[in-house]
C-alpha cells in the first residue's frame, strides 16, 4: 500500500478552510455538502433503492426492508471499523474470519468451563482485541504492508478456528449453549428484535447506527480523528507534526477487533451454534462497502457515514436480487455489476463536486 498524500488528505474535513465571504452562505453550504466523501454513496444508494423498488414488488414491503437493514447491519458494523482503518491507511484481510474466531471463543469457553456465558463473552472480547493488537504490532515491527501481515493472520485464524474447534468438541461446530446461565441476557443485548411501527427490526440495526454516530463524531470532532486522517494521508508528515502514528494504527486494528467481537457475539446468540468454517471471504465485502462509501484504497480519505451507505447498498443488492426473483446462478455476477455501478456513480458525483 502506497501512501501518496492526496490533496483531500492535506486538510481533513474536520477543519474545512473558511469559505470566502463574497458568496452567499447557502452556496458555501451546498459546496461543503458536495465535497463530503459520502455524497456519491448517497446518490448511489438512492439509485439502487429506486431500482429495486421498481423491479421487485416485495422489496417495497416494510418487513422486506427490515430484512435488508438486518443484512446491511451485520456487515455494516464491520465495514465501519474497516473504513476507519482504511482512512488510517491500512487493510485488514483477517476481519472476516476474526468474526468467527470471536464467536467460537465465547461459545467454547463457556461450554468447556460450564461457566456463565458472560465469561465467554468477556474473554472473547479480550481475544479479539489481542488479535487486533498483534496485527498492529506485526505491522509496525516488521514494516511489511498490512495486506501481507493480515493475509498471514487471516490464514492462521482460519486454521486455528477449525483445529481448536475439532480439538475441543470433536466436531466442526460448537455445542449449543442456549440452556446456560446468562444466555438470554446476552441474547437480548446482541440478538433481540425491537418492534418499530409493527415491524420486527433486529437490534443490530440500532447498534449499527449508534456505532456509526460514534465513529463519525470521533472522525470529525476529536483529536484522534485528526490523527487517523493524518496517519493515512502521509505517515512522514504526520510524524513530523507530532502525531503518534504507531499508536493510532494499533488502535485502529483493535477497533476492527472490537467490531469483529460484536458481530461474532450477534452470530452466536442469534444462531446458537457456530460453524468453524464460516466468515471466509467476508473481509472483501467489508472493504467493498467502505470503498463504495467513499474510502480511498490509498488511505487518508473517507467517512463513517459512507461506510454505512456502502453496507446499505450491499444489503439492498443482496436481498433485492432474491426479491426480484432473478436467476440465482447469476447472483454473484449481479452483485459485482451493482457494486461497480455504485462505485462509478460515487466517483462521478465526486468529480462533479470537485469541478464546481
Amino acid at each position, binding site marked *: 500500500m502506497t501512501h501518496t498524500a492526496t490533496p483531500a488528505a492535506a486538510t481533513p474535513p474536520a477543519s474545512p478552510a473558511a469559505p470566502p465571504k463574497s458568496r452567499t452562505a447557502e452556496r458555501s453550504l451546498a459546496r461543503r455538502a458536495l465535497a463530503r466523501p459520502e455524497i456519491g454513496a448517497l446518490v448511489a444508494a438512492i439509485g439502487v433503492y429506486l431500482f429495486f423498488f421498481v423491479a421487485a414488488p416485495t422489496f417495497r414491503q416494510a418487513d422486506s426492508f427490515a430484512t435488508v437493514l438486518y443484512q446491511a447491519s451485520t456487515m455494516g458494523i464491520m465495514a465501519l471499523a474497516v473504513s476507519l482503518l482504511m482512512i488510517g491507511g491500512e487493510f485488514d484481510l483477517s476481519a472476516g474470519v476474526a468474526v468467527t474466531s470471536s464467536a467460537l471463543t465465547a461459545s467454547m469457553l463457556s461450554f468447556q468451563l460450564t461457566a456463565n456465558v458472560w465469561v465467554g463473552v468477556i474473554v472473547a472480547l479480550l481475544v479479539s482485541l489481542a488479535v487486533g493488537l498483534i496485527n498492529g504490532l506485526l505491522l509496525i515491527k516488521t514494516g511489511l504492508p498490512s495486506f501481507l501481515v493480515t493475509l498471514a493472520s487471516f490464514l492462521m485464524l482460519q486454521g486455528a478456528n477449525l483445529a481448536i474447534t475439532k480439538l475441543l468438541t470433536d466436531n466442526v461446530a460448537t455445542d449449543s449453549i442456549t440452556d446456560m446461565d446468562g444466555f438470554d441476557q446476552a441474547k437480548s443485548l446482541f440478538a433481540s428484535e425491537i418492534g418499530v411501527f409493527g415491524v420486527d427490526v433486529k437490534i443490530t440495526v440500532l447498534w449499527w447506527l449508534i456505532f456509526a454516530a460514534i465513529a463519525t463524531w470521533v472522525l470529525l470532532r476529536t483529536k484522534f480523528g485528526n490523527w487517523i486522517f493524518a496517519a493515512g494521508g502521509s505517515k512522514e508528515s504526520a510524524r513530523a507534526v507530532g502525531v503518534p502514528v504507531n499508536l493510532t494504527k494499533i488502535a485502529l486494528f483493535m477497533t476492527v477487533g472490537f467490531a469483529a467481537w460484536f458481530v461474532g457475539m450477534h452470530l452466536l446468540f442469534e*444462531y446458537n451454534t457456530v460453524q468453524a468454517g464460516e466468515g471466509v471471504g467476508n473481509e472483501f465485502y467489508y472493504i467493498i462497502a467502505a470503498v463504495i462509501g467513499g474510502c480511498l484504497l490509498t488511505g487518508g480519505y473517507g467517512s463513517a457515514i459512507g461506510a454505512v451507505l456502502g453496507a446499505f447498498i450491499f444489503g439492498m443488492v443482496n436481498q433485492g436480487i432474491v426479491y426480484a426473483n432473478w436467476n440465482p446462478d447469476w447472483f454473484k455476477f449481479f452483485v459485482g455489476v451493482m457494486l461497480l455501478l455504485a462505485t462509478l456513480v460515487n466517483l462521478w458525483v465526486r468529480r462533479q463536486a470537485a469541478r464546481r
Partner: protein
Amino acid sequence: MDLRLNRHRRAGLAALATAAALLAAGCSSQGGKKAQEADSGIAAGKADTPRLRIAMITHAAPGDTFWDTVRKGAKSAAAKDNVDLVYSSNPSGADQANLIQNAINQKVDGIAVTLAKPDAMKGAIAKAKKAGIPVVAFNAGLEQWKSMGLLEYFGQDENIAGQAFGKHLNEIGAKHNICVIQEQGHVALEARCAGVKKTFKGKTDTLYVNGTDMPSVKSTIAAKLKQDSSIDYVVTLGAPFALTAVQSAKDAGGKAKVATFDLNKDLVSAVQSGDVQFAVDQQPYLQGYLSIDSLWLFKNNGNFSGGGEKPVLTGPAFVTKENVDTIATFAKNGTR
C-alpha cells in the same frame, strides 16, 4: 485518434470472422450438445391445480454438481405441478436464514429447506410457521426436522450412510483409507467420515482439502498418498472429488483405489471403467422432486409422508460395477 479507432474495429472484425470460420470448420462428429439433446429428460404432464409459489433454499456452495441434480428434480416436479419455483442458496448459516426470511416476505405458499446448519435456521423457520407457510426439510437435518416441527423430511442419514460405506470397505478387504473432506466445517460431511470410521475395521484418516480449488485438491491427495504408502483406499464425499482423486492416485503410483459418496454423469462412467470402485448414492433428484411434490400434495390434498414421525429415506443406494449399467442411462440425462 480516429485512425486508431478504425484499426481497432478492423482487428475486431477480423477476429470475429476467424472465430466464425473456426466454428464452422470444427464440428465434432460425436458428443456435445446435439448428443445431449438426443437424450431426453423426464417429463410428465401438467397439473391444472392453482399456481403455487414454492421457495427452495439450500446450503449449496456455487458450482457443485450434486445440487444441479437436486434442482433438476425440483424443476421437473414444479413443471408438473404448476409451481413457480424460487431457488436460492448460500453456504453460510446466517445468510441461509436470511433467505428464508426473504421467502417469508415474498409470501410464498411453501418452503423446502436443507438443514445443514439446523440451529441457525431455527428462528427463521419458526417465523415461517407463524406466517402459516408449510415447511419441509430435505438432504440435511435428519436429527432436527421433527423437533423443529417440520412437515416431512427427504434424505439419507449421513452417519448411517457412512457406516454402510465402512462395512462395504471391510467386505472388499480395505485396510487403510483417507476420508477427504472438501469443505471445512461442514457437519454433514463430518458425519459421513465419522460413520466410515465407526464401522471400518482398519485405519481411517481425515484429510481436509479446499473444494473450490481442484488443482490443490489433486496435489493434496497425491501428497498424502506418497507420504503414506499403506493407504489403499481414498474415500471422497462428492463425485467431482472422486474423479480428481483418481488422477491423484495415478500420480502417486496408482496403488490406492477410490470410492465415493454421491454420483454424477462422469462418475457413472468411471465406475463402469473401474476407475472408481463404488459409489453411495443418496438420489439427489429424488430429494428435490419429492420436496416440491410433497408441498403440492399438502397444499392440494393435505397429504404428508412419514406421518410427521419418520423421515422418507432416499439413500444409501450402492452403485457398483454390477448394477451401474441400469443407472447409466439415467445418469446420461443428468438426473441420477
